[in-house]
C-alpha cells in the first residue's frame, strides 16, 4: 500500500530572512481561475477608464518667437535641442527640458522657409524668401547645459578652438543676457526665393527647393547640381535615410518626384490631384514614404511601386501642412491647417490621437522627438508646443513592476477593444467644434456620393461602372 498526502513545510513556502523577498508560486491551471474572461473584461474596462483619467498630453509651450513659426529642425546628435524658425527671419535653438531659448541665429531678412541640421550635428543650414542660404555652426552643448550662467564664456573659448579647426572663417561670439547670438559661417545667394532645405544623411551635400531643385556642398557657393522640372516651383524636399543619394520632392503642379542625384533627371514621378505639402521617409522602412497632401489626407507610398498608394490616412479636415515619422517607424505625426495635430499608425487609415488647444492656430510644422516620447508642433500663434506622444504615459523612471502593469493594461485593453463599452471609452476624443462639424459634413457628403455611385452601378450594365479604390483615387498617373 502506497500512500502520499500533500504536506507543505512552512520553510519551503515562506522567506528565510526579513530582507528576502516574499516567495511567489505559480500554477497556471485554468481550473483555479473561474470566470477568468469576465475578470479580464472588467480589468480592460478599468484600464480604459484609467487611461482616460491620466491622459494629459500637453507638457508645455515654448514662447519667444515674434511671428508664426514656419519650420523646425531636429539635431540628430543631441536629444534635448530643437531648432525653430519663424516668418520674420528669427532662428532659435531651444532646450526642450527647460523650454528656453539657448541660442539665436539672426540674419535672415524675410521668412525662413527651411531648416536642417547636418548628420554630425555641427552645421545648421537655413534658407528663406530672401534668396539666401546660410550655414551656421551649432554651439556644442556642455555638461552643465541647463545652467545658463556666465560659464558660457569658457564654452566660447572651447567652441572657438573647435570651430577654427573645421572652418576657415573667424567667428565672433557676443554674450547677451542669457543666450547666444551667432553669426553665420557662410551665406550663399540664389536668384529666386527658396522654399525648403534638407541635408543628406551621409555626406555633406544638402538640397534646396525653390524655383528648381539645387544640390549644394558646404564649401561651394554655387550649387553643385540642379534639376529643373517644368515651370512650377519645388515646394519640399527630403533625403532618404537609407540611401544617401535618393531624395523625394514635391512640386506646385501636384507632382511627387523621386530623384537620384547621380542621375540627371527624375527617377520616378507621380501626378496627384492636389499638391503635396511635405514628405517624410519611414526611418525603419526606407523604401516607403508618406506624403502630406493638400486635400487633408496623407498617402503612404512604396518608393519602388507608385501606381497606387500603400495606405491612405484620412482624418484631417483641412490641408496637412507637415509630417514627421517617429524613430520607431511605427507612427507618424501630422500637423494641419485645421489647427490640430494628429498621430497616425504607419499602416492604419485613421488617427490614433488628436491634439488641439484653443490657443493653437494653424499648425505649420511638426516634429517627432528622437526618443519617440514627445511631439513638437510649431504653429501660427508664434508658439512651439510640446506634447507627449502617448497621452497617458507616465514620464520619468518607471519601476519594472509598474512597467509590467502598464504593459498588462495595454494588452488586456487590446484584447477587448472591439467590445462596445470599451471601444466607446478608448475611442472617445473631444474635437473642437469646427472640426466636428466639418467631419460630420464630409461624412454626409461621402455617404451621399457613395449612395449615388451604388445606384449608378446598379442601373448600368455590370462591369461598365468601376469603383476606384481609395488608394488610387487621388493619383492621376505615374510618369516614367
Amino acid at each position, binding site marked *: *500500500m*502506497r*500512500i*502520499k*498526502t*500533500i*504536506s*507543505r*513545510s*512552512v520553510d*519551503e*513556502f*515562506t522567506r528565510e530572512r526579513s530582507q528576502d523577498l*516574499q*516567495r*511567489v*508560486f*505559480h*500554477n*497556471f*491551471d*485554468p*481550473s*483555479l*481561475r*473561474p*470566470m477568468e*474572461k*469576465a*475578470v*479580464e*473584461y*472588467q*480589468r480592460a474596462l*478599468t484600464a480604459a477608464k484609467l487611461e482616460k483619467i491620466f491622459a494629459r498630453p500637453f507638457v508645455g509651450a515654448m514662447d519667444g518667437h515674434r511671428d508664426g513659426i514656419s519650420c523646425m529642425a531636429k539635431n540628430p546628435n543631441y536629444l534635448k535641442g530643437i531648432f525653430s524658425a519663424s516668418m520674420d527671419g528669427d532662428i532659435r535653438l531651444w532646450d526642450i527640458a527647460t523650454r528656453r531659448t539657448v541660442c539665436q541665429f539672426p540674419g535672415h531678412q524675410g521668412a525662413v522657409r527651411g531648416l536642417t541640421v547636418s548628420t554630425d550635428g555641427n552645421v545648421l543650414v537655413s534658407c528663406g524668401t530672401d534668396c539666401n542660404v546660410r550655414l551656421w555652426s551649432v554651439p556644442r552643448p556642455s555638461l552643465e547645459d541647463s545652467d545658463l550662467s556666465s560659464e558660457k564664456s569658457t564654452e566660447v573659448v572651447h567652441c572657438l578652438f573647435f570651430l577654427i579647426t573645421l572652418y576657415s572663417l573667424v567667428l565672433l561670439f557676443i554674450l547677451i543676457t542669457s543666450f547666444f547670438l551667432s553669426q553665420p559661417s557662410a551665406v550663399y545667394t540664389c536668384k529666386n526665393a527658396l522654399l525648403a532645405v534638407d541635408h543628406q544623411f551621409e555626406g555633406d551635400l544638402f538640397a534646396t527647393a525653390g524655383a528648381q531643385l539645387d544640390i549644394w556642398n558646404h564649401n561651394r557657393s554655387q550649387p553643385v547640381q540642379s534639376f529643373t522640372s517644368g515651370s512650377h516651383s519645388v515646394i519640399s524636399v527630403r533625403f532618404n535615410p537609407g540611401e544617401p543619394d535618393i531624395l523625394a520632392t514635391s512640386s506646385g503642379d501636384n507632382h511627387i518626384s523621386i530623384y537620384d542625384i547621380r542621375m540627371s533627371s527624375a527617377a520616378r514621378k507621380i501626378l496627384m490631384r492636389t499638391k503635396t505639402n511635405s514628405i517624410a521617409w519611414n526611418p525603419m522602412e526606407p523604401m516607403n514614404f508618406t506624403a502630406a497632401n493638400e486635400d487633408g489626407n496623407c498617402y503612404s507610398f512604396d518608393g519602388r511601386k507608385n501606381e497606387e498608394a500603400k495606405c491612405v490616412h484620412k482624418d484631417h479636415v483641412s490641408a496637412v501642412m507637415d509630417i514627421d515619422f517617429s524613430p520607431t517607424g511605427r507612427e507618424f505625426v501630422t500637423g494641419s491647417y485645421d489647427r490640430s495635430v494628429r498621430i497616425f499608425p504607419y*499602416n492604419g487609415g485613421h488617427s490614433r490621437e488628436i491634439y488641439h488647444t484653443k490657443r493653437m492656430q494653424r499648425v505649420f510644422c511638426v516634429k517627432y522627438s528622437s526618443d519617440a516620447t514627445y511631439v513638437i508642433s510649431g504653429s501660427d500663434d508664434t508658439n512651439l508646443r510640446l506634447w507627449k506622444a502617448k497621452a497617458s504615459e507616465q514620464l520619468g523612471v518607471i519601476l519594472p513592476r509598474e512597467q509590467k502593469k502598464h504593459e498588462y493594461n495595454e494588452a488586456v485593453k487590446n*484584447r*477587448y477593444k*472591439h*467590445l462596445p463599452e470599451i471601444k466607446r471609452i478608448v475611442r472617445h476624443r473631444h474635437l473642437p467644434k469646427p472640426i466636428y462639424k466639418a467631419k460630420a459634413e464630409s461624412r454626409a457628403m461621402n455617404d451621399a456620393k457613395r449612395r449615388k455611385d451604388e*445606384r449608378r452601378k*446598379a*442601373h448600368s450594365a455590370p462591369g461598365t461602372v468601376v469603383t476606384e479604390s481609395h488608394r488610387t483615387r487621388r493619383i492621376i498617373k505615374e510618369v516614367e
Partner: protein
Amino acid sequence: MTMEVALEDNNLMEKVLPPDEQEIDVELEAKEKKYLRGEGANLETLKDKKLKTQLASREKLYGKSAKAAAKIEKWLLPASAGYLETDGLEKTWRVKQTDIAKEVDILSSRNQYDIVLPDFGPYKLDFTASGRHMLAGGRKGHLALVDMMSMNLIKEIQVRETVRDVAFLHNDQFFAAAQKKYSYIYARDGTELHCLKERGPVARLRFLKNHFLLASVNKIGQLHYQDVTYGDMVASIRTGKGRTDVMEVNPYNGVVALGHSGGTVTMWKPTSQAPLVQMQCHPGPVSSVAFHPNGHLMATSGKERKLKIWDLRKFEEVQTIHGFHAKTLSFSQKGLLAAGTGSFVQVLGDSSGDYSRYMSHSMVKGYQIEKVMFRPYEDVLGIGHSMGWSSVLIPGSGEPNFDSWVANPFETTKQRREKEVHLLLDKLPPETIMLDPSKIGAMRPSRRKERPTRGEIEAEKEVAVEAAKGVELKKKTKGRNKPSKRTKKKKELVENVKKTFPEQEQGAAGKKRRIGEDAAADLPSSLKRFARKN
C-alpha cells in the same frame, strides 16, 4: 524577420526526437490542450488581410504560451498530488484512517483529529479560499474561527441563538452567520458589524467570491442577493417553490442552485425573476446538491436513497449510485465526491471514468454528520457533526500547487491587504452571472432592431383579447344592471384592447397600401423606387 527564422529553427529541432522523448511530447500536448482553452479562431473566412495577419500572429503567441505553461506544469511545480494505491486484493475503501496515519508523515498526521463539543449542537463548517482558516458554527450558537495551519483558535463567540449556517466573506476578516431571526456579519475579532434584517430567517448562506454577493435562501423560500461592498440588495427573488434549505453555488459560473421538495433543482441568477433551468432530478425531495469545480458536473442526492451525477452541458444524467441517501455532498478540487449520511462518510473517485468507491470513514455511532467539506489545497476532509467536528485524510483530493496570486495559504498581512484591494478592483457586476461564462467577450452577430413578426403580434393580440373577455364586471344595483348595458360595456372593453394592436400594425407597415402594390413586389430591386407609392 530574424525572429521568425529562429522560430522555424525551433520547430525543425522539435521534429527530430528519440522515441522515448516522443512519449513525453504526447503528454505535453495533452497538457497544452488544457491551456489553450478551446479551439483557435477560423481565419479563412476573413477578408481583411491586415486583420488576418494580426490574428494569425496572435494565435501563434497563444500556442507558444500554452506550450510554455505545459512545460512549467511538467517540470517546475513544487509539489505533487497525493495518492492512495493498494496492491493485490486490497481495496482502497477498506483502508482506515488509522492505517493511513501509520504511513504518512507527522505534518499530515496532525490533520487527523476529532474535536468533541457535545453541548453546542450539530456543527456547520466553512473554509476560506486558501484553506487556511476554518469557521465552525454550532446550532446552539457557538461560532469558532480557527487557523488550520497552527491549529490556533483565533476567536470564538457564543451568540446565544440558533445558528443555521455560517459563511466566510472574501477573506478570513469577515464572516456571516444565519441566526434565528436575522443574519449577521461579524469581523474577525467577533464584533458584530451588520444585521441583515431584510432577509428574514435564513436557512442557507453562500458567498459568491468574484461578485462579492452574499446569497441566501430563507425559510419562506425567497432568494436574496446582497452586494457586501456597499450593502445594496441586488435581487430578492420569490422562487414560488416553497421552503427549502438546499442551496449551492456553482463556482464555475456563479449560478445558485436550489433543491426543492418536489425533486426539482432550479438554477438562478440575480438579474432574472424566473429560474434559468429547472431540472427534475429525483422523484422525492432533493436532500443535497454539489458542483464539481470545473462546472460541468453536478451531484444530487434524493431521499429515495439515490445519488445522481448530472452533466450540466447537456442536462443529462451521467450516473446513478444506489444505496444511500446523502445528507451532505462535497466535491474536492481534484474531483473526488464525499457523501455523508448518518455517521458514515463515503468518498467516491472517478479514476476509472465513473464514480466508484474510493474511501470511506465511519464515525462513532451517535455522531450525526451535518456537513462535509473538502479543505482547499490539502488532502483533508472536514466533517461537522452533532458532537463537534473532525478532520480526516483523503489522499489525492486536494490541489497540491497553489498560485500565490489566486489563493495563498502562507499569506502575510500585507499580501492579504493588497489582495483585498485587487479583488475589489476586479469585482464583477451581477449581470455577468450566466450559464455559460465564456460568452463574455465574444461578439454577437449584429442584427438591426428586430420588429416582432406578424404571427407574434397576432398571438399577443389574442392573449390580450382573452384577458379582456375574462374580466368580470361589477354587478350594479338599483336598476342600472340592464343586460343590454352589460354586453355593451363588455364589447367596449374588447374593442379598446383591439384598438391598441392595429395602431402598432399600421406604424410598422407604413401607410395604406394602394391597389397595384402587390405588382410592385414583383419588380426588380433597382426599379422598386419607381413603383407607385402613396
